[in-house]
């Protein structure tokens, strides 16, 4: 740091004036009186409380979705029909996917955004606090509705999380209209959340913080929010067309009436592929925060990280048909989607190399968040490589709809996105609760998770290459060994998440080593100027930000 720059002023400067009983407490402000009593959580407009609600909700959904996955793994433990009927098995695979994607991973990232964006940009709250409350409370309604379909006549959704028509229209269970309503609610929640995040980032940055001074987590969320606004209407449109096909006699996706089932797949994946990046870009931001902290170096290639994120987001709109190589695309389209898909490996590679360059010659220490972040980098890269394999159109004809695909997207979503969320939780839990997460439990959680997750998903590459189809409750004998391993790994990974639950509960009860304002030696950023735990109201006065001293992009 140049000697001409002022040192950081007293940490208390960053404390909320109102929390300190300062002058701002008298200013008319919508969130001065925190709601209390039983309705407190229903009515809260505080970004930290709503962030916590999001995170706890996604944790609950993670466990529900996990139980569904374990039903699947139990059934696949041995060949033959073991525990459940095929109809129920189909509901389990479908619900597992829907709950994990829309109920666990997406809300977890939104929860992290709620908690951390205002702290990282020095804002007192989100730009639209009441809308924020509404976005959250739509989710419990949506997922209660979705889960309730399991108890309805004919069962819940059984057509796969991609709900391809006509499986999800002509041949769907009667509960499908409830599923559609649940998707609508979750979609509205995402859109409102995205608008709120964009409004917050673009308007509430502390004076002096330019866009290129923002932490990478803020950048990745800004871009993710634009992706959400762009593709959630497409999802809403496609489920509305399903609703019309089912209930009102239209034939958007029904060949008998002049429609086209392939149109469904185009529309779904036009939403679905950007959706994949919605679930990974914030993870990139988290890793870009954690790796520099524990390597005690600034992030290598800040600007290239931002441009890489934006390129990935833009490319995500022109690659959707790589999910549909086998529907009978003309050769030109196969080639176009093959090359654009491979192109995505370039900005993604830039990111991985930047993280490695950040680690290079750093003073690395292996605290819990760093363990998860490093595991993320390795395992996400494995998922990325199988993605490049799947991008090769002629090879995809062999891989399509096999366990190879299952292995690929679980590698990017579980040891990828989920590990990033866990890393973020371990990284920011001291800021949220004021105590360090338990090192012992955390270490056990990490190692059991790494072993469990790889034991679950790595053998799927082989069963997939050997031709085992996905979404089938029974399989040929030659796949038995791989499935045995996958099931053991699945139960190991699933049960070891209870350790994480224990870590979180201990932290919430303030059991553990007290954390100082900056609990990590090498951490930079406005959030670490606040005391731990962060008081309910922070940054009523925007904190001082001098780019030459505080920006992650400074030279």
């Amino acid at each position, binding site marked *: 740091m140049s000697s001409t720059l002022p040192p950081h002023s007293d940490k208390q400067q960053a404390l909320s004036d109102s929390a300190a009983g300062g002058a701002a407490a008298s200013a008319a402000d919508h969130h001065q009186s925190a709601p209390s009593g039983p309705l407190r959580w229903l009515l809260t407009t505080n970004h930290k409380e709503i962030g916590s609600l999001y995170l706890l909700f996604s944790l609950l959904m993670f466990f529900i979705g996990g139980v569904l996955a374990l039903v699947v793994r139990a059934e696949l433990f041995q060949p033959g029909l073991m525990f459940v009927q095929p109809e129920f098995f189909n509901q389990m695979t479908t619900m597992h996917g829907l709950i994990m994607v829309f109920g666990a991973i997406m809300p977890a990232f939104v929860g992290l955004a709620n908690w951390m964006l205002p702290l990282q940009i020095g804002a007192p709250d989100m730009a639209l606090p009441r809308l924020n409350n509404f976005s959250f409370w739509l989710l419990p309604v949506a997922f209660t509705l979705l889960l309730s379909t399991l108890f309805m006549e004919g069962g819940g959704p059984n057509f796969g999380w991609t709900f391809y028509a006509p499986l999800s229209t002509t041949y769907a269970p009667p509960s499908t209209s409830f599923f559609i309503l649940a998707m609508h609610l979750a979609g509205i929640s995402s*859109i409102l959340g995205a608008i709120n995040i964009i*409004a917050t980032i673009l308007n509430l940055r502390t004076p002096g913080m330019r866009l290129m001074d923002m932490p990478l987590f803020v950048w990745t969320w800004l871009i993710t929010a634009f992706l959400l*606004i762009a593709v959630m209407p497409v999802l809403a449109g496609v489920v509305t067309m399903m609703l019309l096909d089912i209930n009102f006699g239209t034939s958007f996706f029904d060949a008998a009436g002049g429609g086209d089932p392939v149109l469904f797949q185009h529309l779904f994946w036009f939403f679905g592929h950007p959706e994949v990046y919605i679930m990974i870009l914030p993870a990139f931001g988290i890793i870009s925060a954690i790796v520099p902290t524990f390597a005690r170096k600034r992030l290598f290639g800040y600007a290239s990280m931002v441009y890489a994120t934006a390129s990935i987001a833009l490319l995500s709109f022109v690659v959707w048909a790589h999910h549909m190589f086998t529907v*009978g695309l003309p050769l030109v389209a196969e080639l176009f989607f093959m090359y654009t898909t491979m192109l995505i490996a370039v900005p993604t590679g830039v990111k991985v190399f930047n993280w490695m360059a950040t680690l290079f010659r750093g003073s690395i220490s292996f605290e819990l968040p760093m363990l998860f972040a490093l595991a993320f980098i390795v395992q996400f890269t494995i998922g990325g490589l199988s993605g490049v394999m799947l991008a090769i159109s002629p090879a995809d004809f062999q891989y399509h709809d096999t366990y190879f695909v299952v292995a690929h997207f679980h590698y990017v979503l579980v040891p990828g996105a989920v590990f990033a969320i866990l890393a973020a939780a371990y990284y920011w839990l001291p800021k949220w609760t004021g105590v360090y997460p338990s090192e012992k439990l955390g270490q056990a959680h990490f190692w059991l998770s790494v072993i469990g997750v790889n034991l679950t998903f790595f053998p799927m590459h082989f069963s997939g290459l050997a031709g085992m189809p996905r979404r089938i409750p029974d399989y040929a004998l030659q796949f038995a060994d791989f499935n045995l391993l996958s099931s053991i790994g699945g139960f190991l990974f699933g049960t070891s998440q209870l350790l994480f639950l224990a870590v979180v509960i201990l932290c919430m009860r303030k059991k553990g080593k007290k954390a100082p304002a900056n609990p990590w030696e090498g951490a930079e950023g406005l959030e670490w100027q606040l005391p731990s735990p962060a008081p309910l109201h922070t940054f009523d006065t925007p904190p001082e930000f001098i780019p030459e001293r505080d920006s992650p992009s400074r030279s």
Partner: protein
Amino acid sequence: MSANSRQEVQRGIARTVRRSLLLLLAMVGFTLALIPLYDVFCEVTGLNGKTAAQAQVISGEQIDTSRSIEVQFITRTHAGLPWALAAENTSMRVHPGEVVRADFEFVNLGQEAHWGKAVPSVSPSEGARYFRKMECFCFREQRLEAGERSQMPLVFQVDPDLPREVKQLTLAYTLYSHDQALGEKP
């Protein structure tokens, strides 16, 4: 923060929200436009294997005797309609430009009268828009009494502009029940 700058921030937020909502509306509009766009795109390129829904005129170009195309017919009946559809010849060789007639036989194997419609699809899809139909039972719904048999023609022409690498065209007809659409008991 002073009251002035607070107001300014609020105005900024309102502006951002307005713009995001505009973007959202644009995307809703784009989604709605995708359906007709897809149809037009497929009509122009034939990508989804659909052929024209109305009778087309004979293209007056020369018959290209230098090559012949194998045209195959595949038929199947969708669940819920007790009909059988069969092509008299499942395969024929035609020269591009030649006007050819192929006969199909419909049989209602059920105990009741039904409405049905045959929906065509051509593969490879590159050939779909070069498959011109002058007359086809697939242009309208058919009604067959219980046990009724009916011969119906398809008159078609393979456009001489058909790309040379396409040597074979497969026309698949799927019979769908149209009882519900026409208000009759299934």
